[in-house]
Protein backbone atom coordinates (compact mmCIF):
# COMPACT_ATOMS: atom_id res chain seq x y z
CA UNK A 1 0.00 0.00 0.00
CA UNK A 2 1.35 3.43 -0.85
CA UNK A 3 0.90 6.51 1.32
CA UNK A 4 -1.59 9.35 1.03
CA UNK A 5 1.41 11.66 0.55
CA UNK A 6 4.34 10.32 -1.39
CA UNK A 7 7.55 12.19 -2.12
CA UNK A 8 10.21 10.86 -4.47
CA UNK A 9 13.65 12.46 -4.68
CA UNK A 10 12.29 15.98 -4.44
CA UNK A 11 14.84 18.78 -4.86
CA UNK A 12 14.49 22.54 -5.01
CA UNK A 13 17.21 25.05 -5.78
CA UNK A 14 17.02 28.83 -5.83
CA UNK A 15 19.18 31.45 -7.40
CA UNK A 16 20.02 33.92 -4.68
CA UNK A 17 21.70 37.29 -5.04
CA UNK A 18 24.41 37.98 -2.50
CA UNK A 19 25.17 41.66 -1.89
CA UNK A 20 28.21 42.43 0.21
CA UNK A 21 29.35 45.96 0.83
CA UNK A 22 32.06 47.02 -1.62
CA UNK A 23 31.71 43.86 -3.72
CA UNK A 24 29.86 43.11 -6.93
CA UNK A 25 26.54 41.28 -6.65
CA UNK A 26 27.03 37.49 -6.79
CA UNK A 27 24.49 34.91 -7.90
CA UNK A 28 24.55 31.92 -5.61
CA UNK A 29 22.66 28.65 -5.90
CA UNK A 30 20.90 27.68 -2.70
CA UNK A 31 19.80 24.05 -2.42
CA UNK A 32 16.76 24.31 -0.20
CA UNK A 33 15.73 20.67 -0.70
CA UNK A 34 18.01 17.81 -1.65
CA UNK A 35 16.68 14.45 -2.84
CA UNK A 36 13.95 14.20 -0.22
CA UNK A 37 11.90 10.99 -0.25
CA UNK A 38 9.28 9.76 2.21
CA UNK A 39 5.70 8.57 2.49
CA UNK A 40 2.89 9.47 4.84
CA UNK A 41 0.19 6.90 5.51
CA UNK A 42 -3.47 7.82 5.70
CA UNK A 43 -4.57 8.79 9.20
CA UNK A 44 -1.05 9.51 10.38
CA UNK A 45 0.21 12.63 12.11
CA UNK A 46 3.58 13.17 10.53
CA UNK A 47 5.98 15.72 11.94
CA UNK A 48 8.64 17.64 10.08
CA UNK A 49 11.18 18.79 12.59
CA UNK A 50 14.20 20.97 12.10
CA UNK A 51 15.76 24.35 12.75
CA UNK A 52 14.97 27.48 10.72
CA UNK A 53 16.29 27.11 7.20
CA UNK A 54 16.26 23.30 7.27
CA UNK A 55 13.89 23.16 4.28
CA UNK A 56 10.59 22.35 6.03
CA UNK A 57 8.62 25.25 4.58
CA UNK A 58 10.09 24.74 1.09
CA UNK A 59 9.00 21.11 1.22
CA UNK A 60 5.51 22.13 2.36
CA UNK A 61 5.29 24.73 -0.41
CA UNK A 62 6.19 22.11 -3.01
CA UNK A 63 3.56 19.74 -1.63
CA UNK A 64 0.90 22.46 -1.65
CA UNK A 65 1.74 23.48 -5.26
CA UNK A 66 2.94 26.95 -4.27
CA UNK A 67 6.41 26.08 -5.54
CA UNK A 68 7.46 23.87 -8.42
CA UNK A 69 10.28 21.50 -7.49
CA UNK A 70 13.50 21.64 -9.50
CA UNK A 71 13.46 17.84 -9.80
CA UNK A 72 11.66 14.84 -8.34
CA UNK A 73 7.99 13.98 -7.98
CA UNK A 74 5.34 14.09 -5.30
CA UNK A 75 1.74 12.96 -5.00
CA UNK A 76 -0.82 14.22 -2.51
CA UNK A 77 -4.00 12.18 -2.12
CA UNK A 78 -2.97 10.36 -5.28
CA UNK A 79 -2.64 13.53 -7.36
CA UNK A 80 0.62 14.75 -8.81
CA UNK A 81 1.73 18.15 -7.50
CA UNK A 82 3.15 18.84 -10.95
CA UNK A 83 0.20 17.96 -13.17
CA UNK A 84 -2.96 17.91 -11.03
CA UNK A 85 -2.59 21.06 -9.01
CA UNK A 86 -6.28 21.86 -8.50
CA UNK A 87 -7.01 18.33 -7.22
CA UNK A 88 -4.04 18.56 -4.84
CA UNK A 89 -5.35 21.89 -3.55
CA UNK A 90 -8.84 20.46 -3.05
CA UNK A 91 -7.35 17.59 -1.04
CA UNK A 92 -5.61 19.73 1.56
CA UNK A 93 -6.39 22.29 4.20
CA UNK A 94 -3.40 24.52 4.87
CA UNK A 95 -2.15 26.92 7.47
CA UNK A 96 1.15 28.17 6.17
CA UNK A 97 1.72 31.78 7.06
CA UNK A 98 0.55 32.02 10.61
CA UNK A 99 -1.73 35.00 11.04
CA UNK A 100 -0.95 36.30 7.55
CA UNK A 101 -3.29 35.32 4.76
CA UNK A 102 -6.39 37.00 6.22
CA UNK A 103 -8.11 40.19 5.08
CA UNK A 104 -7.84 42.60 7.96
CA UNK A 105 -10.78 44.75 6.87
CA UNK A 106 -13.11 41.74 6.84
CA UNK A 107 -14.46 39.99 9.91
CA UNK A 108 -13.32 36.48 10.77
CA UNK A 109 -16.67 35.12 9.54
CA UNK A 110 -16.39 37.04 6.25
CA UNK A 111 -12.85 35.71 5.76
CA UNK A 112 -14.00 32.12 6.31
CA UNK A 113 -16.95 32.64 3.97
CA UNK A 114 -14.67 34.11 1.28
CA UNK A 115 -12.12 31.30 1.43
CA UNK A 116 -14.92 28.72 1.64
CA UNK A 117 -16.18 30.03 -1.70
CA UNK A 118 -12.67 29.71 -3.18
CA UNK A 119 -12.76 26.04 -2.13
CA UNK A 120 -16.19 25.67 -3.80
CA UNK A 121 -17.92 24.91 -0.51
CA UNK A 122 -21.67 25.46 -1.19
CA UNK A 123 -23.09 28.52 0.57
CA UNK A 124 -25.50 26.60 2.84
CA UNK A 125 -22.77 24.16 3.89
CA UNK A 126 -20.38 27.08 4.37
CA UNK A 127 -22.65 28.79 6.87
CA UNK A 128 -23.06 25.62 8.95
CA UNK A 129 -19.36 24.85 8.75
CA UNK A 130 -18.37 28.34 9.94
CA UNK A 131 -20.73 27.97 12.93
CA UNK A 132 -19.23 24.54 13.72
CA UNK A 133 -15.69 25.91 13.50
CA UNK A 134 -16.61 28.89 15.67
CA UNK A 135 -17.84 26.43 18.30
CA UNK A 136 -14.87 24.10 17.97
CA UNK A 137 -12.25 26.84 18.23
CA UNK A 138 -14.21 29.16 20.56
CA UNK A 139 -14.27 32.01 18.04
CA UNK A 140 -17.72 33.31 19.01
CA UNK A 141 -16.43 36.27 21.01
CA UNK A 142 -14.59 37.83 18.10
CA UNK A 143 -15.59 36.16 14.82
CA UNK A 144 -17.88 39.07 13.86
CA UNK A 145 -15.23 41.74 14.46
CA UNK A 146 -12.83 42.85 11.72
CA UNK A 147 -9.51 40.99 11.84
CA UNK A 148 -7.56 44.24 12.36
CA UNK A 149 -8.90 44.32 15.94
CA UNK A 150 -7.71 40.79 16.80
CA UNK A 151 -4.79 39.76 18.98
CA UNK A 152 -2.10 37.57 17.33
CA UNK A 153 -3.58 34.48 18.96
CA UNK A 154 -7.08 35.27 17.67
CA UNK A 155 -5.72 35.76 14.14
CA UNK A 156 -3.94 32.40 14.36
CA UNK A 157 -7.16 30.68 15.44
CA UNK A 158 -9.10 32.15 12.51
CA UNK A 159 -6.25 31.18 10.16
CA UNK A 160 -6.50 27.65 11.61
CA UNK A 161 -10.27 27.69 11.06
CA UNK A 162 -9.58 28.73 7.45
CA UNK A 163 -7.51 25.56 6.97
CA UNK A 164 -10.52 23.48 8.08
CA UNK A 165 -13.19 25.25 6.01
CA UNK A 166 -13.03 22.78 3.10
CA UNK A 167 -13.03 19.67 5.33
CA UNK A 168 -10.11 18.18 3.40
CA UNK A 169 -8.71 14.73 4.27
CA UNK A 170 -5.19 16.15 4.65
CA UNK A 171 -4.26 18.97 6.99
CA UNK A 172 -0.93 20.74 6.48
CA UNK A 173 0.12 22.96 9.37
CA UNK A 174 3.33 24.97 9.27
CA UNK A 175 4.32 25.98 12.82
CA UNK A 176 0.71 26.70 13.81
CA UNK A 177 1.42 27.50 17.44
CA UNK A 178 4.27 29.91 16.82
CA UNK A 179 2.58 33.06 18.17
CA UNK A 180 0.11 31.42 20.52
CA UNK A 181 0.22 31.63 24.29
CA UNK A 182 0.68 28.37 26.17
CA UNK A 183 -3.00 27.59 26.95
CA UNK A 184 -4.14 28.40 23.38
CA UNK A 185 -1.29 26.33 21.91
CA UNK A 186 -2.36 23.42 24.14
CA UNK A 187 -5.95 23.85 22.98
CA UNK A 188 -4.89 23.88 19.32
CA UNK A 189 -2.76 20.75 19.71
CA UNK A 190 -5.69 19.00 21.38
CA UNK A 191 -7.92 19.91 18.43
CA UNK A 192 -5.29 18.67 15.95
CA UNK A 193 -5.16 15.37 17.85
CA UNK A 194 -8.97 15.09 17.76
CA UNK A 195 -9.05 15.84 14.04
CA UNK A 196 -6.44 13.15 13.49
CA UNK A 197 -8.48 10.67 15.54
CA UNK A 198 -11.47 11.58 13.37
CA UNK A 199 -9.50 10.40 10.33
CA UNK A 200 -7.57 13.38 8.99
CA UNK A 201 -3.97 12.92 7.95
CA UNK A 202 -1.84 15.68 9.45
CA UNK A 203 1.49 17.00 8.24
CA UNK A 204 2.83 19.19 11.02
CA UNK A 205 6.02 21.22 10.92
CA UNK A 206 7.59 22.55 14.06
CA UNK A 207 10.89 23.30 15.65
CA UNK A 208 9.47 22.53 19.09
CA UNK A 209 10.48 19.03 20.24
CA UNK A 210 7.71 18.64 22.77
CA UNK A 211 5.06 19.37 20.12
CA UNK A 212 6.46 16.70 17.84
CA UNK A 213 6.71 14.21 20.72
CA UNK A 214 3.18 14.99 21.87
CA UNK A 215 1.43 14.90 18.50
CA UNK A 216 3.29 12.92 15.89
CA UNK A 217 3.13 9.23 15.06
CA UNK A 218 6.26 9.56 12.97
CA UNK A 219 8.80 12.33 12.64
CA UNK A 220 11.24 13.29 9.91
CA UNK A 221 14.12 15.40 11.15
CA UNK A 222 15.34 17.81 8.50
CA UNK A 223 18.61 19.65 8.23
CA UNK A 224 20.29 21.43 5.32
CA UNK A 225 17.45 20.51 2.96
CA UNK A 226 17.61 16.76 3.62
CA UNK A 227 15.97 14.24 5.92
CA UNK A 228 18.56 13.04 8.40
CA UNK A 229 16.34 10.77 10.47
CA UNK A 230 12.86 9.32 10.07
CA UNK A 231 10.78 7.06 12.27
CA UNK A 232 8.38 7.00 15.18
CA UNK A 233 9.49 9.16 18.07
CA UNK A 234 10.27 5.97 19.99
CA UNK A 235 12.29 4.50 17.12
CA UNK A 236 14.33 7.67 16.88
CA UNK A 237 15.00 7.67 20.61
CA UNK A 238 15.77 3.96 20.52
CA UNK A 239 18.38 4.64 17.85
CA UNK A 240 20.34 6.24 20.68
CA UNK A 241 19.48 3.48 23.18
CA UNK A 242 23.07 2.46 23.53
CA UNK A 243 23.90 6.02 24.23
CA UNK A 244 23.26 8.22 27.15
CA UNK A 245 23.22 11.95 27.46
CA UNK A 246 25.35 13.36 30.23
CA UNK A 247 24.80 16.98 31.18
CA UNK A 248 27.61 18.73 33.00
CA UNK A 249 27.65 22.26 34.37
CA UNK A 250 30.57 24.30 35.59
CA UNK A 251 33.59 26.22 34.31
CA UNK A 252 35.07 24.44 31.31
CA UNK A 253 38.08 25.94 29.48
CA UNK A 254 38.21 25.33 25.73
CA UNK A 255 41.01 22.80 26.15
CA UNK A 256 38.84 20.77 28.54
CA UNK A 257 35.92 20.71 26.07
CA UNK A 258 38.31 19.71 23.29
CA UNK A 259 39.70 16.91 25.42
CA UNK A 260 36.18 15.51 25.90
CA UNK A 261 35.53 15.75 22.16
CA UNK A 262 38.66 13.73 21.49
CA UNK A 263 37.55 10.85 23.69
CA UNK A 264 36.52 7.91 21.55
CA UNK A 265 33.69 7.12 24.01
CA UNK A 266 31.80 10.34 23.12
CA UNK A 267 29.76 10.71 19.95
CA UNK A 268 28.64 14.29 20.30
CA UNK A 269 29.53 17.24 22.51
CA UNK A 270 27.54 20.48 22.52
CA UNK A 271 28.64 23.31 24.76
CA UNK A 272 26.66 26.40 25.70
CA UNK A 273 28.31 29.22 27.59
CA UNK A 274 26.02 31.19 29.84
CA UNK A 275 26.40 34.59 31.49
CA UNK A 276 29.27 34.67 33.99
CA UNK A 277 31.35 32.14 32.07
CA UNK A 278 29.42 29.11 33.29
CA UNK A 279 29.22 26.43 30.64
CA UNK A 280 26.86 23.55 30.19
CA UNK A 281 27.97 20.52 28.23
CA UNK A 282 25.66 17.96 26.68
CA UNK A 283 27.75 14.89 25.98
CA UNK A 284 26.45 11.85 24.14
CA UNK A 285 28.29 8.76 25.34
CA UNK A 286 28.25 5.13 24.24
CA UNK A 287 27.19 2.29 26.49
CA UNK A 288 30.68 2.15 27.98
CA UNK A 289 30.40 2.18 31.79
CA UNK A 290 33.75 3.87 32.10
CA UNK A 291 32.77 6.81 29.88
CA UNK A 292 31.61 9.08 32.71
CA UNK A 293 34.82 8.69 34.71
CA UNK A 294 36.88 9.29 31.53
CA UNK A 295 34.94 12.50 30.81
CA UNK A 296 35.40 13.77 34.35
CA UNK A 297 39.07 12.92 34.25
CA UNK A 298 39.56 14.69 30.87
CA UNK A 299 37.82 17.79 32.17
CA UNK A 300 39.58 18.05 35.52
CA UNK A 301 42.97 17.33 33.94
CA UNK A 302 42.43 20.41 31.74
CA UNK A 303 41.50 22.79 34.53
CA UNK A 304 37.70 22.43 34.53
CA UNK A 305 35.57 22.91 37.64
CA UNK A 306 32.57 20.59 37.58
CA UNK A 307 29.55 21.79 39.59
CA UNK A 308 26.79 19.43 38.47
CA UNK A 309 26.64 16.13 36.65
CA UNK A 310 23.42 14.41 35.62
CA UNK A 311 22.31 11.89 33.03
CA UNK A 312 18.98 12.39 31.30
CA UNK A 313 16.39 10.60 29.18
CA UNK A 314 16.94 10.75 25.45
CA UNK A 315 14.71 13.29 23.68
CA UNK A 316 14.18 14.12 20.00
CA UNK A 317 16.49 17.06 20.52
CA UNK A 318 19.23 14.61 21.51
CA UNK A 319 18.56 12.69 18.30
CA UNK A 320 18.99 15.92 16.36
CA UNK A 321 22.20 16.73 18.24
CA UNK A 322 23.55 13.23 17.66
CA UNK A 323 22.87 13.50 13.93
CA UNK A 324 24.07 17.04 13.37
CA UNK A 325 26.24 18.01 16.30
CA UNK A 326 24.12 21.15 16.78
CA UNK A 327 21.11 22.17 18.81
CA UNK A 328 17.82 23.09 17.15
CA UNK A 329 18.31 26.74 18.13
CA UNK A 330 20.88 27.13 15.36
CA UNK A 331 19.60 28.94 12.29
CA UNK A 332 20.91 27.07 9.26
CA UNK A 333 19.71 29.48 6.60
CA UNK A 334 23.21 30.69 5.81
CA UNK A 335 24.67 27.24 5.30
CA UNK A 336 22.26 25.63 2.90
CA UNK A 337 24.54 25.94 -0.09
CA UNK A 338 26.51 23.12 -1.65
CA UNK A 339 27.37 21.12 1.48
CA UNK A 340 25.55 17.98 2.63
CA UNK A 341 23.71 17.47 5.89
CA UNK A 342 26.08 18.09 8.74
CA UNK A 343 26.96 15.47 11.27
CA UNK A 344 29.47 14.34 13.82
CA UNK A 345 30.97 16.16 16.71
CA UNK A 346 30.56 19.89 17.11
Amino acid at each position, binding site marked *: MSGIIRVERLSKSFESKERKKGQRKKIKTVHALKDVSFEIEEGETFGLLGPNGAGKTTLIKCLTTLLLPTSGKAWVNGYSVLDEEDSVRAS*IGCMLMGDRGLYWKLTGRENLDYFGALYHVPKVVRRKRIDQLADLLHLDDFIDRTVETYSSGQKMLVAFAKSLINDAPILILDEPTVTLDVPTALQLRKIVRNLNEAGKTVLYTTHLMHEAEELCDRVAIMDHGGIIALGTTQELKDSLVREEVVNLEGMFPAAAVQAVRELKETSSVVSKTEAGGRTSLAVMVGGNSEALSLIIEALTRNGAKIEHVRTKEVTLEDVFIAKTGRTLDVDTRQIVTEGGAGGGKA
Partner: protein
Amino acid sequence: MAERRRGGFGLGRPSWRASAGVVKAVLIARLKIISRYKGALLMDSFLPVVFAAMPIILGVAVGGANAGTNFSERTGTSNYKLYMLIGSCTFMVVSVMLWLIGYWIRREQETGTLESIFLAPANQIFVLSGVTFYALIRTLVAFGSALLIGSLIFGVNPFEGNIAVAIGFLAIGLIPLWGLSMLFGALILRIKEGNSVIQLMTWVVSFLMGIFFPLTFFPPLLQGIALLFPPTVMNDAMRAAMLNLGTFFGSWYASLAVMLAFAFAVPLLGYEMFAHTSRRIRAREGVGQY
Protein backbone atom coordinates in the same frame (compact mmCIF):
# COMPACT_ATOMS: atom_id res chain seq x y z
CA MET B 1 1.56 7.09 -7.24
CA ALA B 2 0.15 7.78 -3.80
CA GLU B 3 -3.14 6.34 -2.63
CA ARG B 4 -6.25 8.36 -3.52
CA ARG B 5 -8.90 9.07 -0.89
CA ARG B 6 -11.94 11.29 -0.80
CA GLY B 7 -11.02 14.95 -1.32
CA GLY B 8 -12.30 18.09 0.30
CA PHE B 9 -14.76 20.38 -1.41
CA GLY B 10 -13.72 21.51 -4.86
CA LEU B 11 -12.36 18.18 -6.05
CA GLY B 12 -13.24 17.48 -9.67
CA ARG B 13 -14.29 19.95 -12.31
CA PRO B 14 -16.23 22.76 -10.60
CA SER B 15 -19.70 23.57 -11.93
CA TRP B 16 -20.42 26.96 -13.48
CA ARG B 17 -22.45 27.71 -10.39
CA ALA B 18 -19.40 27.08 -8.18
CA SER B 19 -17.20 29.23 -10.42
CA ALA B 20 -19.81 32.00 -10.43
CA GLY B 21 -19.80 31.67 -6.64
CA VAL B 22 -16.07 32.42 -6.63
CA VAL B 23 -16.59 35.56 -8.75
CA LYS B 24 -19.44 36.68 -6.48
CA ALA B 25 -17.48 36.01 -3.27
CA VAL B 26 -14.48 38.02 -4.50
CA LEU B 27 -16.72 40.88 -5.69
CA ILE B 28 -18.60 41.04 -2.38
CA ALA B 29 -15.41 40.86 -0.32
CA ARG B 30 -13.85 43.73 -2.32
CA LEU B 31 -16.98 45.85 -2.00
CA LYS B 32 -17.10 45.24 1.75
CA ILE B 33 -13.44 46.16 2.11
CA ILE B 34 -13.76 49.43 0.15
CA SER B 35 -16.94 50.36 2.04
CA ARG B 36 -14.81 50.25 5.21
CA TYR B 37 -12.42 52.86 3.83
CA LYS B 38 -14.52 55.96 4.32
CA GLY B 39 -14.31 58.57 1.60
CA ALA B 40 -12.65 56.42 -1.09
CA LEU B 41 -15.57 56.74 -3.49
CA LEU B 42 -15.89 60.47 -2.83
CA MET B 43 -12.23 60.88 -3.80
CA ASP B 44 -12.85 58.86 -6.98
CA SER B 45 -15.70 61.22 -7.90
CA PHE B 46 -13.88 64.49 -7.32
CA LEU B 47 -10.48 63.59 -8.72
CA PRO B 48 -11.47 63.78 -12.44
CA VAL B 49 -13.22 67.12 -11.81
CA VAL B 50 -10.05 68.58 -10.32
CA PHE B 51 -8.01 66.97 -13.08
CA ALA B 52 -10.23 68.56 -15.77
CA ALA B 53 -10.37 71.93 -14.00
CA MET B 54 -6.66 72.59 -14.50
CA PRO B 55 -6.60 72.64 -18.36
CA ILE B 56 -10.04 74.31 -18.49
CA ILE B 57 -8.86 77.21 -16.34
CA LEU B 58 -5.56 77.30 -18.26
CA GLY B 59 -7.55 77.39 -21.51
CA VAL B 60 -9.62 80.34 -20.29
CA ALA B 61 -6.47 82.12 -19.13
CA VAL B 62 -4.72 81.66 -22.49
CA GLY B 63 -7.67 81.90 -24.88
CA GLY B 64 -9.77 84.44 -22.99
CA ALA B 65 -13.18 85.10 -24.54
CA ASN B 66 -12.09 83.37 -27.75
CA ALA B 67 -11.15 80.10 -26.02
CA GLY B 68 -14.22 78.26 -27.35
CA THR B 69 -13.78 79.53 -30.91
CA ASN B 70 -10.08 78.70 -31.00
CA PHE B 71 -10.75 75.24 -29.59
CA SER B 72 -13.55 74.66 -32.13
CA GLU B 73 -11.20 75.46 -35.05
CA ARG B 74 -8.87 72.64 -33.97
CA THR B 75 -11.24 70.03 -32.58
CA GLY B 76 -14.66 70.58 -34.16
CA THR B 77 -16.42 71.56 -30.91
CA SER B 78 -16.43 74.74 -28.89
CA ASN B 79 -17.50 72.85 -25.77
CA TYR B 80 -13.96 72.49 -24.47
CA LYS B 81 -15.13 72.07 -20.90
CA LEU B 82 -17.15 68.94 -21.66
CA TYR B 83 -14.38 67.75 -23.99
CA MET B 84 -11.87 67.81 -21.15
CA LEU B 85 -14.30 66.53 -18.56
CA ILE B 86 -15.03 63.45 -20.70
CA GLY B 87 -11.29 62.95 -21.22
CA SER B 88 -10.48 63.12 -17.52
CA CYS B 89 -13.44 60.87 -16.57
CA THR B 90 -12.36 58.24 -19.13
CA PHE B 91 -8.78 58.52 -17.95
CA MET B 92 -10.02 57.98 -14.44
CA VAL B 93 -11.71 54.72 -15.54
CA VAL B 94 -8.46 53.51 -17.14
CA SER B 95 -6.30 54.59 -14.25
CA VAL B 96 -8.53 53.05 -11.57
CA MET B 97 -8.78 49.78 -13.52
CA LEU B 98 -5.00 49.54 -13.82
CA TRP B 99 -4.55 50.51 -10.19
CA LEU B 100 -7.22 48.24 -8.79
CA ILE B 101 -6.24 45.12 -10.69
CA GLY B 102 -2.49 45.66 -11.00
CA TYR B 103 -1.98 46.87 -7.48
CA TRP B 104 -4.43 44.30 -6.10
CA ILE B 105 -1.91 41.55 -6.90
CA ARG B 106 0.89 43.41 -5.19
CA ARG B 107 -1.20 44.16 -2.14
CA GLU B 108 -2.35 40.56 -1.82
CA GLN B 109 1.29 39.49 -2.09
CA GLU B 110 2.33 41.84 0.70
CA THR B 111 -0.48 40.82 3.05
CA GLY B 112 0.05 37.09 2.44
CA THR B 113 -3.42 36.55 0.99
CA LEU B 114 -2.07 35.86 -2.51
CA GLU B 115 -0.61 32.56 -1.26
CA SER B 116 -3.97 31.72 0.30
CA ILE B 117 -5.65 32.34 -3.07
CA PHE B 118 -3.09 30.17 -4.87
CA LEU B 119 -3.67 27.42 -2.27
CA ALA B 120 -7.37 27.20 -3.16
CA PRO B 121 -8.62 25.07 -6.05
CA ALA B 122 -10.58 27.97 -7.59
CA ASN B 123 -9.24 28.89 -11.01
CA GLN B 124 -7.39 32.20 -10.70
CA ILE B 125 -9.18 33.54 -13.77
CA PHE B 126 -12.42 33.57 -11.74
CA VAL B 127 -10.74 35.29 -8.82
CA LEU B 128 -9.40 37.87 -11.24
CA SER B 129 -12.87 38.18 -12.78
CA GLY B 130 -14.32 38.98 -9.35
CA VAL B 131 -11.73 41.71 -8.90
CA THR B 132 -12.50 42.99 -12.40
CA PHE B 133 -16.24 43.19 -11.69
CA TYR B 134 -15.44 45.12 -8.55
CA ALA B 135 -13.17 47.46 -10.51
CA LEU B 136 -15.91 47.86 -13.13
CA ILE B 137 -18.54 48.79 -10.57
CA ARG B 138 -16.22 51.19 -8.83
CA THR B 139 -15.06 52.88 -12.04
CA LEU B 140 -18.56 53.15 -13.51
CA VAL B 141 -19.94 54.70 -10.33
CA ALA B 142 -16.98 57.07 -10.21
CA PHE B 143 -17.32 57.86 -13.94
CA GLY B 144 -21.02 58.66 -13.62
CA SER B 145 -20.73 60.71 -10.46
CA ALA B 146 -17.64 62.60 -11.67
CA LEU B 147 -19.36 63.42 -14.96
CA LEU B 148 -22.45 64.70 -13.13
CA ILE B 149 -20.53 66.70 -10.52
CA GLY B 150 -18.18 68.10 -13.19
CA SER B 151 -21.11 69.05 -15.44
CA LEU B 152 -22.76 70.93 -12.56
CA ILE B 153 -19.53 72.72 -11.61
CA PHE B 154 -18.52 73.65 -15.18
CA GLY B 155 -22.10 74.31 -16.32
CA VAL B 156 -22.13 71.88 -19.25
CA ASN B 157 -24.74 69.42 -20.48
CA PRO B 158 -23.33 65.87 -20.70
CA PHE B 159 -26.43 64.67 -22.55
CA GLU B 160 -26.08 66.88 -25.62
CA GLY B 161 -24.66 64.02 -27.72
CA ASN B 162 -25.45 60.32 -27.82
CA ILE B 163 -24.75 59.12 -24.30
CA ALA B 164 -26.09 55.60 -24.98
CA VAL B 165 -23.52 55.05 -27.75
CA ALA B 166 -20.80 56.43 -25.47
CA ILE B 167 -21.76 53.95 -22.75
CA GLY B 168 -21.68 51.19 -25.37
CA PHE B 169 -18.14 52.18 -26.35
CA LEU B 170 -17.20 52.29 -22.66
CA ALA B 171 -18.61 48.78 -22.11
CA ILE B 172 -16.69 47.32 -25.07
CA GLY B 173 -13.56 49.30 -24.16
CA LEU B 174 -13.51 47.79 -20.69
CA ILE B 175 -12.89 44.30 -22.10
CA PRO B 176 -9.42 45.05 -23.53
CA LEU B 177 -8.81 47.14 -20.44
CA TRP B 178 -9.33 43.99 -18.38
CA GLY B 179 -6.71 42.21 -20.50
CA LEU B 180 -4.40 45.16 -20.13
CA SER B 181 -4.83 45.01 -16.36
CA MET B 182 -3.80 41.34 -16.39
CA LEU B 183 -0.70 42.25 -18.41
CA PHE B 184 -0.02 44.98 -15.91
CA GLY B 185 -0.59 42.58 -13.01
CA ALA B 186 1.86 40.10 -14.56
CA LEU B 187 4.44 42.87 -14.85
CA ILE B 188 4.00 43.81 -11.18
CA LEU B 189 4.26 40.14 -10.11
CA ARG B 190 7.47 39.88 -12.09
CA ILE B 191 9.24 43.05 -11.02
CA LYS B 192 7.74 43.09 -7.49
CA GLU B 193 7.24 46.81 -7.52
CA GLY B 194 3.90 48.48 -7.89
CA ASN B 195 4.02 52.12 -6.97
CA SER B 196 6.69 53.49 -9.30
CA VAL B 197 5.37 51.52 -12.30
CA ILE B 198 1.84 52.72 -11.68
CA GLN B 199 2.97 56.33 -11.19
CA LEU B 200 4.89 56.24 -14.45
CA MET B 201 2.10 54.46 -16.32
CA THR B 202 -0.49 57.00 -15.13
CA TRP B 203 1.30 59.87 -16.87
CA VAL B 204 2.21 57.87 -19.98
CA VAL B 205 -1.38 56.65 -20.30
CA SER B 206 -2.92 60.11 -19.83
CA PHE B 207 -0.59 61.48 -22.50
CA LEU B 208 -1.17 58.66 -25.02
CA MET B 209 -4.94 58.71 -24.52
CA GLY B 210 -5.07 62.35 -25.58
CA ILE B 211 -7.45 63.18 -22.79
CA PHE B 212 -7.24 66.95 -23.29
CA PHE B 213 -6.52 67.16 -27.03
CA PRO B 214 -7.27 65.28 -30.26
CA LEU B 215 -4.92 62.53 -31.40
CA THR B 216 -4.31 64.43 -34.64
CA PHE B 217 -2.08 66.75 -32.63
CA PHE B 218 0.47 63.92 -32.34
CA PRO B 219 3.13 63.35 -35.04
CA PRO B 220 2.26 60.29 -37.21
CA LEU B 221 4.57 57.86 -35.41
CA LEU B 222 3.20 58.79 -32.01
CA GLN B 223 -0.35 58.55 -33.34
CA GLY B 224 0.39 54.95 -34.37
CA ILE B 225 1.84 54.13 -30.94
CA ALA B 226 -1.09 55.78 -29.14
CA LEU B 227 -3.62 53.83 -31.20
CA LEU B 228 -2.04 50.53 -30.18
CA PHE B 229 -3.25 51.34 -26.69
CA PRO B 230 -6.96 50.31 -26.48
CA PRO B 231 -8.09 53.08 -24.05
CA THR B 232 -7.02 55.70 -26.62
CA VAL B 233 -9.54 54.35 -29.13
CA MET B 234 -12.19 54.07 -26.39
CA ASN B 235 -11.66 57.67 -25.30
CA ASP B 236 -11.75 58.95 -28.89
CA ALA B 237 -14.96 57.05 -29.65
CA MET B 238 -16.74 58.06 -26.42
CA ARG B 239 -15.85 61.71 -26.90
CA ALA B 240 -17.01 61.59 -30.50
CA ALA B 241 -20.37 60.12 -29.43
CA MET B 242 -20.97 62.59 -26.60
CA LEU B 243 -19.93 65.69 -28.54
CA ASN B 244 -21.25 64.67 -31.99
CA LEU B 245 -17.73 64.65 -33.48
CA GLY B 246 -16.09 62.33 -36.00
CA THR B 247 -13.80 59.61 -34.64
CA PHE B 248 -10.13 59.30 -35.48
CA PHE B 249 -10.99 56.46 -37.87
CA GLY B 250 -13.68 58.54 -39.59
CA SER B 251 -16.81 56.58 -38.67
CA TRP B 252 -18.11 55.09 -35.44
CA TYR B 253 -18.28 51.55 -36.89
CA ALA B 254 -14.59 51.67 -37.86
CA SER B 255 -13.79 52.54 -34.24
CA LEU B 256 -16.15 49.79 -33.11
CA ALA B 257 -14.34 47.26 -35.32
CA VAL B 258 -10.95 48.26 -33.87
CA MET B 259 -12.30 48.05 -30.32
CA LEU B 260 -13.83 44.62 -30.95
CA ALA B 261 -10.48 43.39 -32.26
CA PHE B 262 -8.83 44.70 -29.10
CA ALA B 263 -11.59 43.13 -26.98
CA PHE B 264 -10.80 39.75 -28.53
CA ALA B 265 -7.00 39.87 -28.56
CA VAL B 266 -5.91 41.78 -25.46
CA PRO B 267 -7.61 39.60 -22.77
CA LEU B 268 -6.16 36.46 -24.39
CA LEU B 269 -2.72 38.03 -24.39
CA GLY B 270 -3.18 39.29 -20.83
CA TYR B 271 -4.32 35.90 -19.51
CA GLU B 272 -1.51 34.06 -21.28
CA MET B 273 1.05 36.46 -19.88
CA PHE B 274 -0.44 36.27 -16.36
CA ALA B 275 -0.50 32.45 -16.42
CA HIS B 276 3.06 32.33 -17.77
CA THR B 277 4.32 34.75 -15.12
CA SER B 278 2.63 32.97 -12.22
CA ARG B 279 4.06 29.62 -13.39
CA ARG B 280 7.50 31.18 -13.75
CA ILE B 281 7.28 32.59 -10.23
CA ARG B 282 6.20 29.22 -8.84
CA ALA B 283 9.21 27.65 -10.53
CA ARG B 284 11.49 30.17 -8.88
CA GLU B 285 10.90 31.83 -5.54
CA GLY B 286 7.14 31.33 -5.10
CA VAL B 287 4.19 33.72 -5.16
CA GLY B 288 4.59 34.75 -1.55
CA GLN B 289 8.07 36.21 -1.99
CA TYR B 290 7.97 39.98 -2.32
